């Protein structure tokens, strides 16, 4: 930069005296405001539907909430007209039957409001109630659980009342009242966590989760790597095969899961029919229902977790297309010069794969492993549809459902969800620390 240049720049900004502007100018502020405005909808919906529930899990996990508690306690009311009025001046009784919908929750400040039927002149009114015009208001106050009562209003009728089709039905009685909502109240309990950690099941669930995650991820990765090797070189029909290989991943989980269940059905499944008819096995194998097969290896009794293995096989089958796509894309971007040089130097095909291809793929393989590890850990649908978490295949995610909905204990379900979340954050921390930066994911 010459002296003259500096001079003109100084002239252009006489006030700043050759110093760059500091702080945030109005332009920047406007740009930032626009950016926040554009991001606000996304931010709000993510906050409400993702971040909110995440925190709410911690809240629910320390509360004694059962599935049935979600229906708030109310006063059920039933209005009817007693006595048969035939002529004007006849007496009838208007009766409200009231009942607390719960057994053990009190409801405060209960107020009943209703519009009296036309042509009805009240004579005796319960002391809780007052009438202005045709508007009836009864302040019932606080009622305990299991409470039930009747309110009777006696009176006489005129011809207008008699002309009504079904007197008392033209207006619905309205009930107002406050009850403790178990979700917003302040009683806390550690019962849920104690229940979750105390169960003998929990540690086996944790172990199953670990096996499922590690082997499911590994299997999908190995299959993907193999498939990518197959489709790396060009040949006729390659694009057809590539499309076919993506089918398991693209199809709805519900369709492929039920297909596997039917395919491996012990009584009428194709696989078992093949195995028995061709004499490979004596009796059909219950692939998704048998917890373990015992065998002995060199005299040591061992157990092979059959259902878990089948579920892991499904996981690898369904998700290999993903690793396959990534690995294929990476392989096609490797420079071929390297292979030519290796060829000249006499490297054999397997050496080329081991010493050239694999190191080139190490980055994408590790990123894929990290991401798939987290997603396999998160997986719920597959196992739930295949085995429902039975036969030794219950992972943590299935346990959330099992506790929360099958056993109707939302609090315990949320406690398991908290465990899932804490483990997930731990994995994410570890992975963020170790993941290679250059793959750009």
């Amino acid at each position, binding site marked *: 930069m010459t002296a003259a240049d500096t001079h003109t720049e100084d002239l252009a900004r006489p006030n700043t005296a050759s110093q760059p502007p500091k702080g945030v100018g109005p332009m*920047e502020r406007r*740009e*930032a405001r626009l*950016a*926040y405005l*554009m991001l606000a*909808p*996304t931010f709000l*919906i*993510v906050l409400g*539907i*993702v*971040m909110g*529930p*995440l925190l*709410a*899990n911690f809240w*629910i996990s320390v509360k004694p909430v059962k599935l049935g508690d*979600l229906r708030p306690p109310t006063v059920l009311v039933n209005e009817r007209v007693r006595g048969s009025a035939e002529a004007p001046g006849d007496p009838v009784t208007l009766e409200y039957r009231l009942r607390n919908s719960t057994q053990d929750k009190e409801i405060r400040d209960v107020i009943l409001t209703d519009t009296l039927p036309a042509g009805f002149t009240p004579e005796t009114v319960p002391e809780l109630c007052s009438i202005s015009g045709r508007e009836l208001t009864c302040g019932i106050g606080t009622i305990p659980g299991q409470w039930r009562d009747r309110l009777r209003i006696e009176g006489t009728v005129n011809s207008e009342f008699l002309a009504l089709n079904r007197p008392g039905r033209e207006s619905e009685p309205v009930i107002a009242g406050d009850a403790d909502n178990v*979700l917003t109240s302040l009683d806390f309990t550690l019962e849920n966590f104690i229940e979750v950690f105390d169960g003998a099941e929990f540690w086996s669930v944790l172990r199953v989760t670990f096996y499922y995650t590690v082997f499911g991820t590994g299997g999908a990765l190995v299959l993907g790597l*193999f*498939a990518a090797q*197959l489709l790396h070189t060009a040949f006729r029909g390659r694009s057809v*095969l590539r499309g*076919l*290989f*993506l*089918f*398991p*991943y*693209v*199809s*709805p*989980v*519900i*369709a*492929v899961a*039920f297909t596997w269940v*039917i395919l491996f059905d012990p009584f009428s*499944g*194709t696989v*078992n029919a*093949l195995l028995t*008819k*061709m*004499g490979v096995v004596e009796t059909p194998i219950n692939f998704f229902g048998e917890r373990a097969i015992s065998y002995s290896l060199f005299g040591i009794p061992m157990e092979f977790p059959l259902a878990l293995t089948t579920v892991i096989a499904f996981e690898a089958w369904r*998700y290999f297309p993903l690793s396959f*796509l990534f690995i294929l894309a990476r392989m096609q971007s490797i420079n071929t010069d390297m292979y030519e040089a290796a060829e000249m130097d006499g490297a*054999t*095909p*397997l050496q080329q794969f081991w010493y050239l291809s694999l190191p080139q793929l190490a980055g994408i393989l590790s990123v894929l492993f990290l*991401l798939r590890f987290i997603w396999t850990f998160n997986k*719920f649908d597959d196992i739930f549809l295949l085995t429902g978490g039975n036969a030794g295949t219950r992972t943590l995610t299935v346990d*959330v459902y099992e506790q*929360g909905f099958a056993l109707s204990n*939302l609090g315990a379900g*949320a406690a398991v*969800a908290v465990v899932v*979340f804490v483990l*997930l954050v731990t994995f994410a921390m570890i992975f963020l620390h170790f993941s290679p930066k250059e793959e750009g994911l």
Partner: protein
Amino acid sequence: MSALSGLLLAVASGALWGAIGMIVTGVTLTLVTGAVAIPQIGAGALAGMAQAVFLIWRQNGRAGTHVPVLGALVGFVVLLAVSFAAPFSLPMSVITGWQILALAAFLGALTFANQVCLSDVPMGPMTRYHRELVYIRLAKGIGFVLFSIMVALPFYVMVMTSLKSQQALLANPLDLSIDLSQGIGSLFRSYVELFTQYNFGRYLLVSAFVSVSTVILTLLFSVPGAYAVSRLRFPGRATLSRSVLLIYMVPAIVLVIPLYAVFSQLGLRDSLVGLLIVYPATTIPVALYMLQGYFRGLPSELEEAGLMDGLTRLGVILKITLPLSLPALASVSLYVFMIAWNEFLFAFMFLDNPDIFTLSRGIVSLNSSEVPRQHLMAGAVIATVPVLVIFLWFERFLVQGLTAGSVKG
């Protein structure tokens, strides 16, 4: 190295191909015809071996045009001789046409595989390089067979089961052939019943409505967001673009209990509105992530020129950015559509009213002992076909979407 390593390799490879070819043709024959065809694996292996030896012997002499034909003939003779003219353990009088077809397919495939694997293989010693070349050919060939079967078999079973009747399925679970003699109406009986008695037409419409609405909502939210992250400068931008992916890692099962509790109390649970709040919320982060990557790659000079010429920011986005990013929009839309169409957990947890079932939810309700399983499979086919058609039609876009966004699964 042994002086006959080429020959040994040929014998091993031929035996392997013979055995694999026999198993595959035998099982295929069984599944297509319903007759139990037990493949004579040993005979197949011997035939493959003999053929391989013949082929490399001929190769090392003068090359002739008749080699493949002669090779097939060698395989044929050995196979029939060793298996006593019953390669599938069935007398030739049963399903004769199919057996001949299977035999021809076996010999053709065997000859092809042996020829490809053993081209340039000498009888005598081989270098390590050449031996590994043959290993790789073998591994690749087996890989092709294995992967194709592994992927295609479940889908084949799905479609064929949906076309069978209850009695036929119980009588012979192996028989996955199509019986055309019963007429089209009876062939597609499961589908007709699903649409007439089980309300699947409605489920299909609901699924389509929910998926398309999710795509539209997702784009409405994520396009401005992605534009802001990729083009505008504001404090917290770097943190934001990184945390988008972290949000994406949160599993649905962790969200389901609080959402269930809150939506129940708000009366949103058993409604499509509830689904249309949850689905976009789970897809927006990834859509935003995919789109901002693409927007960043667009030349910003174009947009600056637009701004200079008097367009507003909105005008720039609508008239310049969006038309330029149509491919990315297509990828994102297809990917989001696929996620919404295939979604199971929230549909299962939230929907109780059969009038607003999505396909996933509708199929779960078929999974009971009262509903015959060809109905279940027909339901699976109905749910799968639209996604697969869209996938095959727009494969290029969808593959881009998968690779850009498929941190999710």
